[in-house]
């Protein structure tokens, strides 16, 4: 994509989504650290917004998404409402999962978001199966499955990608390589060249992209998604990015090389890079400010309404376990 024919409208749309994701997570972080309103762990994707925005911009609500423990951005980009998401993070009534799942199990089936997952890599085989189901039902939707660089060391990576290849399924696997597996350098625990090389060996059409360049992500995801829609065959995209925060909101990440995070934040922040490009493409600073201000307003409103929301009804813990032999409220049976 040369600056010459730069698609300003798309750039603005990408920036808007990325600012919304960041604002949402900044509010969530405040709710956790400052207000102590988020009791469980949350995993922030600050610094990785370009991947979620750039991929999801090519999906419709009918397409399916399987996400990870670090899924707020994926969920928002797929179209979920921040209001019910924030309520879920706070465990309140009105949350997407009625307060039962929290951040790590957030899901919004109305927009095709089939769930974050608390088990690294577990969503890979599930996503392959969703694509398998689409094929059996003769649907024309596609599936996108996100996971991290660390998930490429789990068995389901091999089993799920092999499955998608063997049954020739309409699915895009997106590996967000943010360099870290919790407090560990993923590279230190990974043999060979990593996830993309493994995907190639499993026969998947594989691409790699600078995951902090929103336009580059959108360009290559756009190509790949239209190819999947046309051929119904699986593909793999590795997006190189960086986790600007700790593993969880509570992790100071003191194990990172001195200066690494500062340098990445100063020099390779996906939002800053996109804003620069938009300015170069003629967008007014004021408009950029307006986008950011709107995002902040939207997400602090979401936090306010979540804060004000009641707890879910106590008895709801006994609902939606199962139809047959479900627990009687308050009894061991």
């Amino acid at each position, binding site marked *: 994509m040369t600056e010459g024919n730069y698609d300003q409208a798309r750039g603005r749309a990408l920036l808007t989504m990325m600012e919304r994701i960041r604002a949402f997570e900044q509010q969530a972080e405040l709710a956790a650290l400052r207000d102590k309103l988020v009791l469980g762990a949350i995993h922030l994707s600050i610094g990785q917004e370009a991947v979620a925005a750039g991929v999801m911009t090519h999906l419709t609500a009918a397409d399916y998404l399987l996400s990870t423990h670090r899924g707020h951005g994926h969920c928002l980009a797929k179209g979920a409402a921040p209001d019910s998401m924030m309520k879920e993070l706070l465990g309140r009534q009105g949350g*997407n999962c009625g307060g039962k*799942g929290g951040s790590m*199990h957030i*899901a919004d089936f109305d927009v095709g978001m089939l*769930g974050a997952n608390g088990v690294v890599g577990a969503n890979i085989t*599930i996503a392959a199966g969703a694509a398998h189901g689409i094929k*059996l*039902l003769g649907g024309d939707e596609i599936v996108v499955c996100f996971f991290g660089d660390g998930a490429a060391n789990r068995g389901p990576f091999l089993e799920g990608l092999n*499955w998608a290849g063997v049954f020739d399924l309409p699915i895009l696997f997106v590996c967000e390589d943010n360099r870290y597996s919790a407090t560990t350098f993923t590279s230190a625990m990974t043999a060979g060249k990593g996830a993309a090389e493994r995907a190639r060996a499993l026969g998947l059409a594989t691409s790699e992209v600078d995951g902090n360049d929103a336009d580059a992500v959108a360009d290559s995801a756009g190509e790949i998604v239209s190819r999947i829609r046309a051929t119904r065959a699986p593909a793999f995209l590795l997006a190189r990015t960086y986790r600007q925060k700790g593993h969880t909101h509570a992790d100071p990440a003191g194990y990172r090389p001195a200066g690494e995070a500062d340098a990445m934040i100063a020099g390779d922040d996906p939002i800053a890079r996109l804003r620069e490009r938009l300015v170069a493409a003629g967008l007014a600073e004021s408009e950029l400010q307006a986008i950011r201000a709107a995002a902040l307003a939207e997400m602090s409103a979401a936090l306010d309404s979540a804060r004000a929301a009641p707890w879910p009804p106590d008895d709801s813990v006994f609902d939606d376990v199962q139809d*047959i032999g479900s627990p009687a409220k308050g009894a061991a049976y």
Partner: protein
Amino acid sequence: MHRMTYAEAARLAVAEAMRADPRVWCLGEDLGRGGVFKQYAGLVEEFGPDRISDAPISEAAIMGAAFGAAMVGTRPLVEMRFSDFALCATDELVNQIAKARFMFGGQSRAPLVIRKPLGMWRSSAAQHSQSLESWYVHVPGLVVCCPATPQDNYAMMHAAIACDDPVVYLEHKDLWALEGEVDRGEAFAFGKARRRHAGDDVTIVSWSNTANLAVEAAEMLAAEGLGAEVLDLRSLWPWDKAAVLESVGRSGRLLVAHEAVQVGGFGAEVLASIAETLPVKARRLGAPRALIAYAPNLEDQLRVTAPMIAAAAAALAKDEP
């Protein structure tokens, strides 16, 4: 009424369900050749390889993919081949399938049937003989079935496929060839035990293959003039506590017999539940907490047999220690 084997009865139910509902499909290793126990013989010819799907040796992916396919509207029947191999897919079953509907606040269902043939089968040794039904009863979100007869393997398979909850369906490997009459009109209701033998002197609760042995034992006891009531629970979750209470109310004596290791087996749950509710003389008869060996004489040391059941029931009935 039709006479057929335990394997044929389940196959018939699967075929009927697949004819009635195009969303139902089966996946597992070697299904295209009828499956390792021929439970799927002939099905690929009728339904084709998409609906009777082979799979790579990837239990985790078989289980996980079936779950994903269920969430988007199909109704998969998962074949795990030996219940022992299903341990390779424990995260998928216990952390994902059993919990998804709840974690997502009711947004999803996981209408899956997970077939896991269990039990001792001549000289299959420790990795191909386990009976872990009590594990699955302990996991909220799962329904657990243990059919013991062709009739029940027919009716329970239909009920399992029709169920919107994930159903762990545990057939016994030693029963595939068991023949019996099947009444296709008889429906199965989860949580309803079947009284396989009537009697007022002692209540014998069992399931799976051991329920058949318990019936043999009851006949031996009848010859001695002792009335043993045999309740085949059929589904372990939910299980028919009411029927057991009613019977024990008459007999005052309870024997729970099963093939699985006694320590931590489902017999403990049955006995404990009843003992909490009413005074009862109760015993369990399960396998020692030992491992299943290959040599037939060693394997036999761990078996719960009809004579053992009869002896234990008689001791209870006669108030012997």
